[in-house]
Each structure stands twice: as C-alpha cells, then as structure tokens.
C-alpha cells in the first residue's frame, strides 16, 4: 500500500493523487524529463549548477546546506570517477516525506538526479534507501529500470554522449546511516560509523572518489527549478529560505498527514488552519518543529514562520520539517524518555561523549519519570547535554542533546514537579 497524497499540494505534489504519475509514461505525459532534456542538450554543466545556485535551494535532509554550492565543490575534470548519492535513508522521527516522494514520484527524483549528475559530471548515482522502506525501494527500482530501458540512463543519454548509471542499495536499519559519511561507510559494506571531516565527501567520498550526497526531496525540487527558472523558485517562500517543502504533521492533531507549503508558512497556520488543531477541545502544550533532533517550542511560540532564519531566533531549526504536536495532557519527562531511548539506541558508539552521554541522559530521565529523581538530577541532565554538544565526530551527539535542552528550557517545571512529588503528575499523559 502506498502513502496518501498530501492534504495540501503544490508544485512538487500536485499530481500525486493521480496513480499513473509514478509510471514513466504518466510522468512524461505531465512534462516529465523535459527539464533534464533541456539541461543535457542546451546547457553546460556550469550553467546547470549556476541555475540551482541562483535558485537558493537549500538541502531538505535536515542541515539546509545550499545545494548549488554543494554541487560546485565537486572537482572539475575526468581523471577519476565522480559519484552522486541520493540519501533516501529517511529515519528522523516525525519525517515521512521522502517515503511519499519515492512512492508517488520516483521519476521526479530520478530526473533531479540526472540533472545533478550532468551538472557535477558524476558517472554513477547510488540511491541508498533505508532497509525498512521495502515499498519505496520496489517503486524506485521499477522506475530506474523503466527509465534505463527508455535510454534516460546508461550510455549516450538523449544522444548527447553523456553517460550515467543509477543503482539502488538498501540499508539494513541504522539511523546513523542518514549522516552522509555514515551512509558512505555503509555503501562500502561497513558499519555506518561517520567519518572525520575533512576530507569532505566532495574530495574523498564513496569508495574514495569525489561524491555529493543530496536528500530525496532536494533532488525533487531540481527539475522544477530547471523548468521554470531560478527567479520563479526564489519568488516562493522567504528571502533566505526559498521554495516549498513537504511538512509532515503527527501527534495530537485532528488531521495528521503531509502538507506541501512554502517555507516561511507560520507554524500555527499549519497546525490550526491546515491540520485542524488538537482534537477533543484540548490545548497545545508543545510542538517539535523539525524532526526529533530539533528543540521543542512551547504553545506561546507557535506564531513562528517555518524557516531557519526565524526558527533560529527561538533556538530551534527546520530540520526535516517533521512537526510533532503534543497536547496539554502530555508529560514532557516522558517525551524526554522516548527521545533519549532513541538516541541511546542509535548512537554508533564511536565517540565517548555520545555513547556514554545518551545512556546517562536516558537513565536519569527514567529515574525522574519513575519518581526516584534526585534534586540535582535536572542540573545533571543539563551538564551531560552540554558536554555532548560540539565534541564528537558527527552531529548526532548534538542532535541527542538539543531536544533534551529544549525540554528543560521550556518545561523545566514538569521535571522539577516529578522530583518534588516523587511521582509523575500527569496521569492522562500518553503511556510509556
């Protein structure tokens, strides 16, 4: 079974409810692969990269790095093979947009890949799909086979002499493989433990070759930018964060689902106008705006535009646009327990601060939730989280610390009440 089309659609998802959009003929019938044709036959690789640069497109995998700039880091010349990687290892809790894109629009993603390959001079793309996404993998593989049979991949694409091959690889269940160098290790048949940087992947990537890693959604914007131009793209969203994105809304809302909206749409507009607000007449207590790694916002801060330049002012970030809503019954210590369990479970174990810190945080949070917390446990949590930030090989450790720091910044009273009362004061909260 495939995912439902978004409740609100835009240029990415306008055809998602039409079943044949996922097929090669259905995609071509709606203008598919025209942008790639134009790029390959009328533009130079530099012009392609410049157009994406001018659009201001930022990566949609969580870090928000400018895509065109990333492409321009790839060395020129043909002395060694260059690779692209499509990061389809979507595993950020609260995020499920890439699954939708792969199930409904595999050719849109592949067309973005083809354009990116031409721009960067890559000879091969590895699409790394998380192991659990069996349905996504089936649909992407079918799309690769169809497009290759039609001459859109392989040798001498569209008679231009350009060659590019795409292959799919399935992961096997490890959140850390979404980190780009963890992914590269996994692609090489190893444990997905992130690499030290530098060297960055553009110099030393997959199998030691220059490599660019982009997220599924990022690739999906590219054909639209090439088709309608950088100026069109820049006209959507905010000055600093152009374009639409597909927000995933989950938790305590009336209409959980996917919503394609411009960056800069206010969080409260998404929650109340689009997702129908909290059911049962209850109030919102807090909202995680961008996947579990991003710090929570309390009910009083929901009038924020969903773009990094505004979210940063409130000490959080857009991340992957996975919005998780918690109503007034929610115990924020339990939220901390769930979050810390996840990060403890998924830490790759390379760096001490992360391996030990995630375990400590989980242990202390559970002690507080059980009613056995010590008076100094809350400060201990802050101390441990502070020591995990910026001290490790990759950003996982920061991602584990930030949400706990966010909970304590806005909901410290919940934690103190547990310690003081010796029990959880939220009997109606979700169960652990």
């Amino acid at each position, binding site marked *: *079974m495939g995912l439902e089309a978004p409740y609100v659609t835009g240029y990415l998802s306008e055809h998602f409810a039409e079943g044949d959009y996922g097929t090669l003929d259905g995609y071509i019938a709606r203008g598919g692969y025209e942008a790639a044709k134009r790029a390959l036959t009328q533009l130079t690789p530099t012009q392609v990269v410049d157009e994406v640069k001018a659009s201001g497109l930022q990566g949609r995998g969580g870090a928000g790095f400018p895509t065109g700039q990333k492409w321009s880091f790839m060395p020129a010349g043909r002395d060694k093979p260059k690779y692209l990687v499509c990061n389809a290892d979507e595993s950020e809790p609260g*995020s499920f947009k890439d699954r939708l894109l792969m199930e409904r629009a595999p050719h849109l993603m592949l067309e973005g890949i083809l354009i990116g390959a031409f721009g960067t001079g890559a000879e091969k793309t590895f699409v790394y799909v998380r192991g659990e996404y069996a349905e996504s993998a089936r649909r992407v593989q079918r799309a690769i086979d169809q497009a290759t049979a039609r001459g859109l991949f392989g040798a001498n694409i569209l008679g231009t002499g350009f060659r590019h091959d795409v292959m799919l690889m399935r992961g096997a*269940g*490890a959140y850390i493989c979404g980190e780009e160098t963890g992914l590269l290790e996994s692609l090489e048949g190893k444990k997905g433990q992130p690499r030290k940087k530098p060297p960055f992947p553009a110099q030393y990537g997959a199998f030691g070759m220059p490599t660019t890693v982009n997220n599924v959604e990022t690739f999906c914007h590219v054909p639209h930018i090439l088709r309608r131009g950088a100026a069109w793209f820049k006209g959507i969203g905010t000055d600093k964060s152009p374009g639409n994105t597909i927000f995933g809304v989950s938790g305590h809302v009336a209409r959980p689902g996917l919503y394609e909206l411009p960056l800069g749409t206010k969080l409260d507009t998404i929650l109340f106008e689009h997702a129908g607000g909290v059911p049962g007449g209850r109030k919102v207590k807090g909202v995680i705006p961008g996947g*579990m790694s991003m710090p929570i916002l309390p009910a009083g801060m929901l009038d924020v535009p969903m773009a990094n330049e505004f979210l940063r002012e409130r000490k959080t970030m857009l991340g992957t646009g*996975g919005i*998780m809503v*918690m109503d007034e019954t929610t115990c924020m210590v339990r939220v901390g327990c*769930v979050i810390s369990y996840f990060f403890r479970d998924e830490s790759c174990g390379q760096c001490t601060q992360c391996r030990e810190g995630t375990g400590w945080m989980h242990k202390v949070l559970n002690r507080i939730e059980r009613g056995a917390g010590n008076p100094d446990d809350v400060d201990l949590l802050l101390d441990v989280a502070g020591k995990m930030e910026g001290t490790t090989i990759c950003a996982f450790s920061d991602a584990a610390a930030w949400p706990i720091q966010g909970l304590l910044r806005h909901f410290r009273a919940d934690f103190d009440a547990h310690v003081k009362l010796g029990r959880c004061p939220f009997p109606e909260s979700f169960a652990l």
Partner: protein
Amino acid sequence: MVSEAAPAAVLPAETRAAIEREIAKYPQRRGALLPALHLVQAERGFISREQARALAEIFEIRPIEVMEVVSFYNMFYDRPQGRHHVYVCTNLPCSLRGARQLLGALESHLGVKPGETTKDGRITLGHEECLGACAYAPMLRVDETYYENLDVEQARQIVDRLA
C-alpha cells in the same frame, strides 16, 4: 563448535551467483556486503556463523568483519527468528497515539515480550524506532509490509492471520 562444512554447501550456488551479480555493480567488492547479507538472510531468516565465514571468503575479509556488520544493523540477525517479524513503532509520534497500548495488547495476545518468539516459532515480536509512518499511527511492520492507523482489534487480527 563451528561445523567444517565446505563453503559451497553453506551457500547454495544460486545465492553465490546472486552475490556475484551484486558485487559486479560496485566499484569495490566489499560494497556488496549489505546486499549479500540481505540475500543470505532470506534463506533461513538469520546469518549463521558458517554463512558469515563463507561470506568472509567471498569478500576476502575476516569473519569478524562480517559479524560486526551483522551486529551493527537492526535488520540483520545472528540467531534464529520467528517465521514472521511483527514490529510496533514506539517512537514519539506513535507513542502519542497509543503505540504502547498496542504493543502491550500484542504481548498479552501472543504471550511473549518484545524480542521473544512465540513457542510455535510463528512470530518474533518487537518494537522499533521511527518507521516513517508518523501520521498513520499506531502502526505495525509485519516483515516487509506496513499496516497503519490500527486499533488493538485490527492488530490482533493481522497477527492471527500469519501462518
């Protein structure tokens, strides 16, 4: 004791051929180790020591290097599993919508705890981290299939249908 069966007997010819086809797709042999582990695991539901040794020979690495990959990834198993995996996602979006109650109900229904296999070898129950079904919670992953927007009764019926 590890048996001394020849590698050929541990991995059937078709599996070896399929592994070689995977290897041919990668710039370096070892790149195909994860696909090879998926192929080998499909035979018996887990990776045995003997199979890991045979893979080590194919990939020209040490057996421990195969096993450390097996143990790193959640979807590879180093011991026998039930005929079906039933996983409940218990990450935050699912927990907010009753995933723990669903897991608890399946524990009582099947008489096993997460990580355990039913006595008849039919089902290994587990809970899993985010499966990308956040808006359709609570949900189950049964082997390679997602079941979403479930209540307890539907979940029981789904597991009862598994042979």
